[in-house]
């Protein structure tokens, strides 16, 4: 069975097949070892060729002007050295057991070092016709679905050099497919743990058919001195409802690149929660594309860089159809020389009349050594629209801290409450109670530390 391989997969030690490109040969060897369908090896090979032909971001590229990748050599990481096979819950690390038990979920997949280690709850979903499985398995069992959606139309392979590399190198990946008018009551949970010094390419593909409803939590952990280059694709057929939560809590030394994009057809409803806690550097592209009338999308983000963390979100609200609504709110707190960048764009095409599109970015600076850049943008080609954007930056004022301290709160308690209060506008729209609780704990940890 696929999950029970125990080969050593070290990118550098696999002998080259034809000697010209060891990295390519290694990724193909890994694909084979994972038991993927043969078509996927061709797919990966082509993507690799595309990646090699694509330019590295240049300093004049607007998207990369404020976030430099100096010191990043993407080929200088290792790849899931050993496939340890599947284990029972008791063999999971305490951290992963904690993550698993903290949340109430319909089903959970746990990946370690790029491969699935544990899963639970999947059988009951299958009875409802819901697919929730690792991508490598899906390349054999759902080839048609993947050929249609996997990096073809939502985040195409050649979006940029990182997506092309992702297409060639993806490892921990999940296919979620919810059939017509089917509703998954509890969240589907994906937990991804990445070991030290590794490159990880996490992929989540959600396809919600007409009238389907699903909530997905994507939990990213680990990657000490590693690289995570993820792609999230969400396809929403008419009238579907998706709640997607991306909880990035990587090690503070990780490089983190992300491309996330959702396509909403008529009357589709999306709420995307983007949480950026960890990593040394994050550059995340998040795009909403409203392709059919009546679509409704909320994109809510929180980030809290501390120390020397650098967190960059770049969002696009693309309205291509009339009568759609999109609301974006990104709130960030910064502490101890941290740096954040927010770049937002609302684009409304000529046919997208009666668009409501809102965008807000708030930054709370816990001390004066931090810096938050906020660059909003509007590109409106329709005339009957309501679009607003706003950016605010505020210091945690002594007056607030003093007021709370005069009521007996210690300084850390006062700061914690102020920051939690600042995040509240996002937290109160997080659809899963246990996630809210978890986020509050991280905020506490970040302030304490």
């Amino acid at each position: 069975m696929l999950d029970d391989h125990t080969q050593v997969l070290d990118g550098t030690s696999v002998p080259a097949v034809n000697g010209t490109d060891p990295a390519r040969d290694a990724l193909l060897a890994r694909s084979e070892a994972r038991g993927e369908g043969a078509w996927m090896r061709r797919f990966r090979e082509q993507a690799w060729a595309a990646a090699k032909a694509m330019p590295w971001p240049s300093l004049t590229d607007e998207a990369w002007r404020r976030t430099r990748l100096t010191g990043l050599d993407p080929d200088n990481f290792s790849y899931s050295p050993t496939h340890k096979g599947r284990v029972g819950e008791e063999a999971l690390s305490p951290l992963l057991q904690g993550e698993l038990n903290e949340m109430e979920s319909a089903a959970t997949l746990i990946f370690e070092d790029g491969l699935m280690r544990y899963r639970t709850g999947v059988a009951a979903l299958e009875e409802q016709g819901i697919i929730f499985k690792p991508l490598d398995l899906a390349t054999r069992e759902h080839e048609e679905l993947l050929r249609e959606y996997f990096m073809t139309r939502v985040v195409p392979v050649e979006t940029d050099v990182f997506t092309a590399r992702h297409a060639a190198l993806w490892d921990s990946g999940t296919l979620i497919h919810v059939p017509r008018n089917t509703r998954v009551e509890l969240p589907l949970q994906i937990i991804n743990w990445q070991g030290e010094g590794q490159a990880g390419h996490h992929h989540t593909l959600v396809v919600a058919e007409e009238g389907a409803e699903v909530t997905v939590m994507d939990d990213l952990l680990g990657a000490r001195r590693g690289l995570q280059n993820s792609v999230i694709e969400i396809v929403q057929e008419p009238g579907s409802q998706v709640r997607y939560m991306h909880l990035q809590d990587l090690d503070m030394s990780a490089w983190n690149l992300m491309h996330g994009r959702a396509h909403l057809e008529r009357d589709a409803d999306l709420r995307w929660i983007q949480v950026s806690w960890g990593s040394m550097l994050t550059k995340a592209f998040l795009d909403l594309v409203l392709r059919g009338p009546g679509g409704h999308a909320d994109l809510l983000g929180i980030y809290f860089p501390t120390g020397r963390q650098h967190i960059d979100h770049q969002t696009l609200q693309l309205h291509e159809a009339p009568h759609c609504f999109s609301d974006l709110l990104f709130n960030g707190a910064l502490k101890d020389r941290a740096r954040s960048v927010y770049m937002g764009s609302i684009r409304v095409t000529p046919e997208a009349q009666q668009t409501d599109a809102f965008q807000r970015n708030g930054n709370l600076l816990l001390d004066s050594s931090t810096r938050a850049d906020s660059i909003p943008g509007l590109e409106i080609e329709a005339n009957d629209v309501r679009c607003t954007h706003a950016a605010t930056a505020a210091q945690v004022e002594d007056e607030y801290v003093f007021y709370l301290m005069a009521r007996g709160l210690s300084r850390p308690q006062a700061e914690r409450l102020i920051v939690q209060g600042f995040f509240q506008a996002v937290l109160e729209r997080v659809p899963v109670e246990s996630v809210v609780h978890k986020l509050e704990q991280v905020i506490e940890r970040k302030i304490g530390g």
Partner: protein
Amino acid sequence: MSQLEIRDLHARVEGQDILRGVSITLRPGEIHAMMGRNGSGKSTLAYVIAGHPHYEVTEGDILLDGESILEMEPNERCQAGIFLAFQYPVSVPGVSVANFLRTAVSNVRGFTKEAHLASQEGGVVGSHLMPMRKFRRELTAKMKEFQVDSSFARRYLNEGFSGGEKKRTEVLQMAMLEPRFSILDESDSGLDIDALKVVADGINKLATEDRGFLLITHYQRILNYIKPDYVSIFHDGRIVMTGGPEVALELEEKGYNWVEEQFGPAELAA
């Protein structure tokens, strides 16, 4: 005997001397009213007692039961039993009154020491917080007693509160924190007569034998509802006259210009 003694206090802010030798002693069971013009330094005195970091004490001392509190942080002063009701309470978005007060009350009552009781009370063992049920019960009762609508527990602290609602919430917090000495900085200002009565009523309920009050005010009006033991006139950063309730009436009659004629023009800009 328990007392809060302010002894020849001098303080400055932003390089400007504001307090110029204030001496006053608060004792349990006594209400000391302090009246003065805008800009005379009343709020400065209140802030210095509470430990505002922007104000620097240049001379004199503040002694609680004989011990100086000048080196204490604002939260330590609060925990020691000193409470300041702000003239202008700040609003804290996203922080609910209940959430904030539970932390405050737990700290002030030293809930860590009672952690072993938590399980009996239905709380979390080892948690530093007062058990939720116990806290809720008490808050609900006090909100009723001090005429704060129960919906305010969930509202964000002072956010969108009217002037009267802010002042009533300050009194509610005082009731929850049970301080020994309270400094009330213009808890009456900006209130219509009904709101004023509610606030005065709350203060009277709390003015028991074991508590002392410094009632800072600009107008004599609140003294129709709260009977002070002493009235002092504050002028140009110090107390220029102290007497019984008759001082307030005299001031009401003659106006602040009379103070200026008696004690010289203020050097501080109003």
